[in-house]
Structures are given as structure tokens and as C-alpha cells.
């Protein structure tokens, strides 16, 4: 009888879990990460001579709920052709019965790691706008992400921002519905921990980023994602950011993460518009201002013209003064 020590046990476990790529055009290079749904592997596409990422479900669930979700995820991403959403290249079934899909290999950093390099709030808000743009696009196509958090956003080597992990995403309707509630996902895999590692994994929502209605397993809609975006905004404003966040930004974040969906921004576009307004020095919807503050903001926005006007008035006054002497 063969004696299997602990190290052999681990090697055999990996052998069981590794995707069987025989009969495909791919060669396994290594594992990128593990999520609740399965693993993500770096594979070489021999036909096109490039490396791609392959997502494969865990070995035990080839015909179960996870396989169904992987299939759904691949199809949802395929319908979301957007520069902020990682593209799917190919899909199929491995010889061991497990479905897979391949996608662009993103050689970047997760947002939660990346932002430490960019402490300026304005830089972070520009990243946030690009995330919002991708999410707004998905909503326009009737797709909810339902697991937006910093670990599910990758920033590529050229600064491209990609929203990953659509494994929990849900199609609202085939039409372009936005606030049509969809029933909660009843998942048998709820014991799985949130994803970590590459950001390619799949979870059922991440604590701290889930809207109250999602936590309570109530119907969700696009405002559920808006809550998660608000929680991400809070992360971007606090995690290693330079200085305290301005009140207007905090108000935007509070509005996005309001307890009741009706009190939040109703579309991602509204949220993004407020962020753009803030960056442009304009008033934001979430932070109503009194007349004094509004006047002060007007002065600040027009300070160049006001300065010129002031110089003109002073020069003019001096001329009048010297002429009348």
C-alpha cells in the first residue's frame, strides 16, 4: 500500500483540481487564483500563440449550480463588449466534464492594491468614474454585477480599469430595464469565503459592499450596485488617501449608500455626474449649498476673471486718482 505523506497529499489534491486540458488548444502554465466558484489558470493558447486566463469550476460540480453560473457568467460577459469589462475569448467543456471559458489575461493589480500608489483623491475619483462607466454600460444592457468591490476591479499596466468577476451577475431583462427588481440568488454555496487573490474569483457578495437588500436576500436592482459603488467610493476616500475627504464627496458617498434604495442615486449616471461635477468644482446634487457657500464657490470658480476685474478696477481707480490730482 502506497504511503501518502502530507506533501504528496497536497500534490495529489492539485492533480485532482487541475483542469484536464487534453483535447483543447490550451496548455496549462499555472494557477492565478481561487474563488468560491473555481479556479482561474494562466494557460497558453497554442493556436494563437498567446496567454489567456481560463476560468474553470471546481472539480466536484461539473453538472451542478456552479457550472450553470459559470455558463451564465461567460454569456453575460460576452454580451458586455466594453473597454472596462474583461472580454471573453472562448468557452467549452473539458474532458473531465467541467465547463470553462477563457478571457483576456489581465496583468495588473487589484484596485485595493493599486490605490496605495495613488493617494490623491482626484486620481482615485477618475478611476472611480471609469468603474462607474463600465457598470452603467452593464446596467444599460440589463445586467447587474452584484459583487462590486475593490478586489473585483483590476487596473492594467496602461492604467486601464477592468471590472471583473461577473459570476454573481444577473440579467434584469432582455430589454434595457434599470430598476426592475430581480429575485435574490438562492445559492447553495454560501459557505464559501469571499474571493481573494487575483480578483478573478467568485463570491456571493462581499461583506461591507453588499446593499442592505442584498444582505437580507430581498429583490435587488441597479440601485444595489449603486450601493456597492458608494461603498467603493468610501474605500477610495479613506484607504490611504491624502487628507480628509471634502464634505461634498462624503455627501455623495452617503447618498449612494443610503439604507433605502429610493434614497440613493437612481442611476449610475447620476452618481458619476455628481463626481464629475465635484472634479469640475461645480455644485453636486447630494450636497445642497446655502447662498453664502454658493457665492463663495462662484468666486472660487471665477477667481481668474475676478482677479482681472479687480486689477482693472484698481488700475482704473489709480488713473482717476492721479488725473484728478
Amino acid at each position, binding site marked *: 500500500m*502506497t504511503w*501518502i505523506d502530507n506533501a504528496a497529499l497536497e500534490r495529489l489534491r492539485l492533480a485532482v483540481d487541475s483542469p484536464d486540458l487534453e483535447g483543447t488548444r490550451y496548455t496549462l502554465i499555472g494557477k492565478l487564483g481561487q474563488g468560491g466558484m473555481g479556479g482561474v489558470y494562466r494557460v497558453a493558447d497554442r493556436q494563437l500563440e498567446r496567454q489567456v486566463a481560463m476560468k474553470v469550476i471546481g472539480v*466536484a460540480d461539473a453538472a451542478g449550480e456552479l457550472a450553470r453560473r459559470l455558463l451564465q457568467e461567460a454569456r453575460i460577459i460576452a454580451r458586455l463588449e466594453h473597454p472596462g469589462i474583461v472580454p471573453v475569448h472562448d468557452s*467549452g467543456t473539458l474532458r473531465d466534464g467541467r465547463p470553462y471559458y477563457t478571457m483576456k489575461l489581465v496583468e495588473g493589480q487589484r484596485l485595493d492594491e493599486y490605490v496605495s500608489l495613488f493617494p490623491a483623491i482626484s486620481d482615485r475619483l477618475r478611476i472611480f468614474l471609469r468603474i462607474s462607466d463600465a457598470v452603467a454600460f452593464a446596467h444599460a444592457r440589463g445586467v447587474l454585477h452584484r459583487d462590486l468591490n475593490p478586489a473585483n476591479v483590476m487596473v492594467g499596466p496602461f492604467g486601464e480599469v477592468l471590472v471583473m468577476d461577473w459570476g454573481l451577475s444577473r440579467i434584469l431583462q432582455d430589454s434595457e430595464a434599470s430598476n426592475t427588481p430581480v429575485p435574490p440568488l438562492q445559492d447553495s454555496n454560501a459557505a464559501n469565503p469571499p474571493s481573494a487573490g487575483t480578483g478573478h474569483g467568485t463570491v456571493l457578495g462581499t461583506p461591507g459592499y453588499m446593499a442592505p437588500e442584498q444582505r437580507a436576500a430581498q429583490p435587488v436592482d441597479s440601485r444595489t450596485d449603486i450601493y456597492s459603488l458608494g461603498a467603493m467610493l468610501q474605500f477610495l476616500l479613506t484607504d490611504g488617501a491624502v487628507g480628509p475627504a471634502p464634505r461634498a464627496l462624503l455627501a455623495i458617498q452617503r447618498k449612494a449608500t443610503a439604507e433605502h434604495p429610493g434614497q440613493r442615486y437612481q442611476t449610475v449616471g447620476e452618481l458619476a455626474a455628481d463626481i464629475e461635477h465635484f472634479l469640475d468644482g461645480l455644485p453636486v446634487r447630494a450636497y445642497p449649498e446655502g447662498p453664502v457657500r454658493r457665492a463663495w464657490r462662484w468666486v472660487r470658480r471665477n477667481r481668474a476673471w475676478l482677479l482681472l476685474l479687480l486689477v482693472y478696477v484698481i488700475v482704473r481707480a489709480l488713473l482717476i486718482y492721479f488725473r484728478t490730482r
Partner: protein
Amino acid sequence: MSENTPFPGAPQHFPLTRWSVVEAARSPDAHERQRALDTLIGAYWKPIYKYVRLHWRKNAEQAADLTQDFFVKLLEKHLLERFDPARARLRTYLRLCADGLVMNADKSAQRLKRGGPLPPLSLDFETAEGELRQLPLAATDGPEELFAREFARSLFTRGVERVRAHCTQQNKLLHFRIFELYDIDGAAKDLTYDDVGRRFGVKPTDVTNYLAFARREFRQCVLEELRKMTATDDEFRREALELLGLKLA
């Protein structure tokens, strides 16, 4: 296309044996019940023995007696028939049964009397004891982790033996040797496929193909063994995720 339509070529079911010891233990057919018990003993006797030795800190003789008693009680008290998959997984249930047996034995402060329908089982406790001596113990292991790891070891051992038997039958012993080199001995860590090919007198591409074949066989065998040891699809999936996803080293 509907979102529930499978990928082209996707099998509707994972091609595994659906036979389960739990169902078989409830069968009216005595032969089927005996087969269930034999399968269960084969997979669980070492985990039970090691668990009693390590967790309950019994000496080798006590642990051997308690392991024998465990399977006697399992049969006498119809414990397998009483197992409810809705309440616990089989592995946890058996561990709790073992806990109960040891505690009762401690309470009565005397060895349990064996008897009933089972003669003493022919179990190789000396081998199990030898394996225990080779085992580096993690001080942080709780009872669940300890039992899970030993069950995984038993499962994998059975899987390896089945692959060896398959390869021998199909005259593919070289496939097994390469699998053994890579995944059991771990001796190929610093070797290239060329090195391994030279050692066995085959082409490097054959090394990858042989290894892939043996790993596929092993995966199938392990999953079939696990399928036997679980009562429902859900239990099977959870067990696979936990046991095959354990960081064991």
C-alpha cells in the same frame, strides 16, 4: 440561446458511479448491506484509528480495540441506517459516533465487550501505527481538521491503488510510474520532461500524455470513492470542495 443551455459538448451529469454506502446500508439485500459496510470499513478504519490515537490519546492497543468496536456498534445499532444527510455529512457523523464510543468507553472505564454479528475485523493496525510515526502533527489541528485530513489521506490512498490496478490491467505501468514520480514521490520537482523522458526511455511529449492520463484516472477514482462515501449530490459537492480544497501540506 437560453442562459441555462449547457456549453456544446457538456455532459449533463458528471460520469460518476452513483452508488453510495448510505443508500446501500438501507438496502433490503443483505449482500448489498455487507458491501456497504466493507466499503465503509475500507475507507474509514484508518482515519478512525488515527483519530482515536491522536485526538483521544489512546495507546495503540486501546485504539485498535476501539476501532474494532466502532464498526461492531455501527452494525449492531444500525448507525448507518440512522444517518440523516439533512443534518450532517457522513464524515462528521462518523467522527461524532467515534467520539461517543470513546467517551462511553471512558465512562465505563472498561473495554467494551465485542460480540454480535461481526467477528474481529482483519485490520492492519501495525501499518497504521507505522504511518502515524511518519506523520508530522500540527499542534493547531482540531478534531474536525485531523479527521478530515486522515479521511482525505485514506481516500487518496484508495485512489492511487485503483490507478495502479487500472494501469497494470491496461499494461500502462509506465503511466503510473510517471504519475508516482511527479505526484506521490515528488521526485520530479527539479526535472524537465526531457529528463524524465530519458529516464524512462520515452519522448517528452509521452511524459506529458502519460501523466495526464494517470491524473485523469486518479481524479475519476477519487471522485468515485468520494461519491460512495456521500449520501446526496450536495454532500458530495461540499465534501469535494472541502477535502480536495484543503491546504494539507
